[in-house]
């Protein structure tokens, strides 16, 4: 699965994008965030506080409970600050 990172998440991870094979049975945004916390010290730090993480699935904002089944692109980023 294609995973994108923006703003300070991108900076903390040192990567704008990863292509990942997810563990079987990992179905929701919340579960994906929990798994990210286990992947490396940098991931643990970046995903430490899920309340600061927003997610989009295939270009649409998705809540923590959303299913990632069938998604081709999942993005993680901080609360937005445009305008």
């Amino acid at each position: 699965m294609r995973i994108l990172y923006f703003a300070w998440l991108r900076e903390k991870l040192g990567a704008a994008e990863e292509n990942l094979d997810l563990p079987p049975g990992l179905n929701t945004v919340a579960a994906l965030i929990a798994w990210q916390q286990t992947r490396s010290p940098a991931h643990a730090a970046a995903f430490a506080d899920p309340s600061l993480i927003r997610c989009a699935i295939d270009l649409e904002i998705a809540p923590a409970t959303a299913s990632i089944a069938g998604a081709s692109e999942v993005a993680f980023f901080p609360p937005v600050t445009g305008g």
Partner: protein
Amino acid sequence: MIKILIQQADFNAGAELAALQADAVGGIASFIGTVRANPADNPPLTALYLEHYPGMTERALTKIAEQAAVEWSLTNTTIIHRIGRLTPGENIVFVGTASPHRQAALSATAFIMDWLKTSAPIWKREDFSTGQSAWVAAKQTDDKAAEKWIK
């Protein structure tokens, strides 16, 4: 007509207003956001760096512009958001709407600005004169401003 641009380049507000005005509709409201030299409680700013989610931004902006056009009977809507490195005084964003009714155009412009602050996948980093930099934190006041449009 809906015009959405996400670009590094500056915009020409006068030309955008003239384009919005093309059909003699009645009223054109606009808002321009610029980079402030001295953000509250922070050292002077050297630059603002803006990052966005290509593809999602254009899609989300088009959707919100279409929604506003229906809600406020807009004949024309233009949203231009700059990205990349911008220095104090430079333009960040232009929102312009044309409608037969002045209050509709002003309300639609306020709505789109509130929405950009809370829902467009765009992030700002402040680069300070001290050499440090910090990603701007989302404001609760912006969330409240956006919530008031939800009926």
